[in-house]
């Protein structure tokens, strides 16, 4: 069936959860674009054949057979329905023209459908990428390795460019909003901070980090009481574990 390849892309887009994204299906995207291009050439052929038979005067409809032109991608319904008016006296050539019209309509619909599925697939994926970046505090380096292998090169570029765009904006605006100190741009917007200092246990060895109060040595198994802003990114990637002692 004509729209099936694009439908497979739509199903893959549905599989995207906040935790998991399937690999970028380059093969499927290529198939769909190939099919779309093929359909477009077929449509042009059929329109050309309709035009040539119209100019030879073989197609006589009650409305004048104007040469059908492909203007923009808008689907002008009236042009096609003009041909349907005289269904009682249908000659063979009219039947043939009807068939071609119907076929063209079908191809055009499939073409729009393919376009929609492609766009929705990519839109969904970039949506996922953006939310991923925000949870990772806009640091492209924090993206797990196995995840980045599932992204196409363009998507990896997208991540980097998005982070860069944000930092450019922040630099441009920060000095005006908050002249004395730096603004924590990437703090979690959905979970408002409750405490200034939090208790953490170290899961994986991080070495030493520089905090406001000096250098802290983070060794596996130790517990520390530190400023939230200093270590939030380490909690996100799992090196530290937040202990709630309420």
């Amino acid at each position, binding site marked *: 069936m004509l729209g099936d390849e694009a439908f497979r892309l739509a199903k893959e887009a549905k599989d995207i959860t*906040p*935790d998991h994204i399937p690999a970028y299906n380059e093969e499927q995207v290529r198939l769909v674009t190939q099919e779309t291009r093929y359909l477009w050439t077929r449509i042009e052929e059929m329109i050309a054949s309709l035009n040539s038979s119209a100019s030879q005067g073989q197609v006589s409809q009650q409305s004048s057979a104007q040469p059908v032109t492909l203007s923009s991608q808008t689907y002008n319904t009236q042009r096609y329905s003009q041909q349907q008016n005289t269904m009682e006296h249908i000659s063979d050539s009219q039947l043939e023209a009807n*068939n071609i*019209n119907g076929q063209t*309509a079908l191809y055009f619909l499939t073409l729009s459908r393919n376009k929609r599925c492609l766009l*929705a697939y990519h839109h969904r994926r970039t949506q996922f990428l953006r939310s991923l970046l925000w949870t990772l505090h806009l640091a492209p380096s924090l993206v797990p390795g196995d995840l980045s292998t599932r992204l196409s090169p363009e998507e990896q570029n997208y991540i980097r460019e998005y982070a860069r765009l944000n930092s450019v904006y922040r630099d441009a605006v920060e000095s005006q909003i908050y002249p004395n100190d730096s603004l924590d741009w990437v703090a979690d917007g959905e979970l408002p901070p409750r405490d200034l200092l939090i208790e953490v246990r170290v899961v994986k060895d991080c070495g030493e980090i520089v905090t406001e109060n000096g250098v802290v040595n983070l060794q596996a198994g130790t517990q520390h009481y530190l400023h939230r802003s200093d270590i939030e990114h380490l909690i*996100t990637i*799992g090196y530290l574990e937040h202990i709630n002692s309420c």
Partner: protein
Amino acid sequence: MAKRSYYDIDDILAGQERVPCVLRVDLDGLGSAGSGAASKVHRDARWALPYWMADRLNEEDYVDMEVSPVFSKRANRMYAASPESIQLRAICQHFYQFGLQLGDVVPEIPHVLRSMYMQRIQRVARTAQQGHNVEALDFVQGLDKTEARMLKLCQQAESAVADWQQSKAHTLKKASVVSS
């Protein structure tokens, strides 16, 4: 008219449901995957087309679209009789989305959808609160995609409330992406 987004994946998936049609012209390319251009379906043949195709071709009178068996008169009567015991996943996985799309054309459908949804969603919410037990299992397995999403949302809300009661709501967590 239901507002639908161009990029909405659920809308695209629901539009793929088939409806029976009678063709008025010969059409090519409607065969199953693999037969490609070799399949040509002739005039006055019956064929099941995906809804996105059938709807637009119906406007142009290239096909005559008929109401899908999911929303036939007999089916509608069944829905009105016992909404909670019907296995929607067996009938049509995207029941509500598909019904919304069809509802633009067939006027009785929105009413059917509404009464079904109102009755079933109460049971969904109750199931979410009680946790899964054996009787609810059949019901849960018969939900369509929309209701399943509602169930998951309810369950998440329940666990969030439980977390908050145990003062665990403000714990910073490792990003779920990283652990996958």
